[in-house]
């Protein structure tokens, strides 16, 4: 019961019910499609970068499970207005938090909604649901190649 409450915290459920930054982005400078053929999570991430490379706007669309929807929603909030360097750091932290067996090396308490996803680690079958949004963001920033969870490593 505790485990399940960790996974489906109010924060996750709220992001699932009312995803932030949802919709297609007009004038996007980059976009990518992410797909998890095992469970059917299917999302699009749109970014707009200014001349300095800063992501000044971001959005996503798609049909996905609660974990993927919430994680992607939280991702858009975490990276909006951030520089590429800041985003790379954030993405590395997110993937560390979601996939590492060790405790995160950064302070979860300072991470707000972002930290709500830490419970996913107890559910190995669901980790790919939670990382899909981040991988798709990465692709949207790097040219937009489709992300397929069954083609990537681990």
């Amino acid at each position, binding site marked *: 019961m505790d*485990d399940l409450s960790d*996974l*489906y915290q109010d924060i996750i459920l709220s992001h699932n019910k009312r995803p932030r930054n949802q919709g297609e982005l007009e004038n996007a400078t980059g976009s990518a499609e992410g797909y998890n053929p095992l*469970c*059917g*999570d*299917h999302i699009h991430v749109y970014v707009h970068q200014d001349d300095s490379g800063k992501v000044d706007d971001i959005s996503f669309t798609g049909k996905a*499970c*609660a974990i993927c929807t919430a994680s992607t929603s939280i991702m858009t909030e975490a990276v909006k207005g951030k520089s590429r360097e800041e985003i790379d750091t954030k993405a590395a932290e997110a993937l560390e938090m979601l996939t590492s067996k060790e405790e995160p090396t950064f302070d979860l308490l300072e991470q707000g909604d972002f930290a709500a996803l830490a419970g996913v680690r107890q559910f190995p079958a669901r980790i790919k649901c939670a990382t899909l949004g981040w991988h798709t963001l990465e692709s949207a920033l790097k040219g937009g190649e489709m992300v397929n969870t069954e083609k990537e490593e681990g």
Partner: protein
Amino acid sequence: MTASVSSHDPRADFPILSRSVGSGAGKPLVYLDNAATTQKPMHVIETVDRFYRHENANIHRGVHYLSMNATDAYDRARERIAQAIGASHPAEVVFVRGTTEAINLVASSFAGDRFQPGDEIVITMMEHHANIVPWQLLAKKTGVVLKWAPITDTGEIDLDAFRSCFSEKTKLAAFTQVSNALGTINPAREMVAIAKEFGAHVLVDGAQGVAHGMVNVAELGADFYAFSGHKVVGPDGIGVLWGRRELLDAMPPYQGGGDMIARVSIEKTTFRESPERFEAGTPNISGAIGLGAAFDYLDSVGWDEVRRREHELLEYAFARMSEVDGLRILGPASIDDKVSVISFTMDSAHPHDIGTILDTEGVAIRAGHHCAQPLMDFYQIAGTARASFSFYNHRDDVDRLMDGIAKVKKFFG
């Protein structure tokens, strides 16, 4: 409680069903993923165990005692299975790894050998990927054309629409006896008859049908029937391609190697007849013997008893799930048109979230596209949650499933 005419509860024959799953002390296992694979009774486990402890040897090539005994046991398993499925001769039973390999064998050695560009193969919208992809690969390689027979909104075959896919160009119909994703029982005999009117050969995917005692190849009238042992309380890695003997004997080998040859020389190799022609290399001997034991076990339970128990579970689960607000059951509206499989979606929760929540309650179901993505596209959904019941499940298992569904609603509203 279940009013059983049988005093013996088959659940007691399946040791895994008494374990718990999950972290800490866990929860008693409620196994409702039987359409993916069935659990194994002690009789099968002990048969395979005894083979490796006391009887193991390679077959068909030894002059020694153990090898001759193992060969006998392997051949007896083939005879046992031939009898169980209504084959006219054991040589019609080819041992393969499973349904997937059986269909690939037919695609390669039968269709690949004799079909011409423009020839047509009819499949349906409800097929498992195992009965789609081999034909797509063949189409790419040879220029044969796939025709997709439509299904109704309730996931059933409309025989008129099915018939309209056929023409003089149709060389093969390949369809499932029972939908793995929905549980629909197809009118397989009528479908075979339609294909035969057009002179087409027929392969029936029996992966799901076999578990519910629906195999009688003599009555079915098809040319090939494919199934997996693990779906019928047997071991995994063993399955059967049944084929008409005259067709099998006219087909070229599927793989080359030992045991399938009549004579090998530097210039020329000749091949044995079926089934050995298609069983290159050392086969899954213990698997075949275990599968024979699975049919022995099911005979001892009785197929009527299997069907009676499963139908009772389906009736109870269908009624209870139908009462849940926001829960939609896909597939036939009448339980008389389906096996004990309930595929469902919930308004508030994605199938994977349903699966995770049920898992924490010890309830194992399947969530996803069930290797039937064209069917999911037809319903415009990414996937479903699927609870599939076997004769060894209890009404209590349905109650635990319902408790889990109530919990899903609690989390997701």
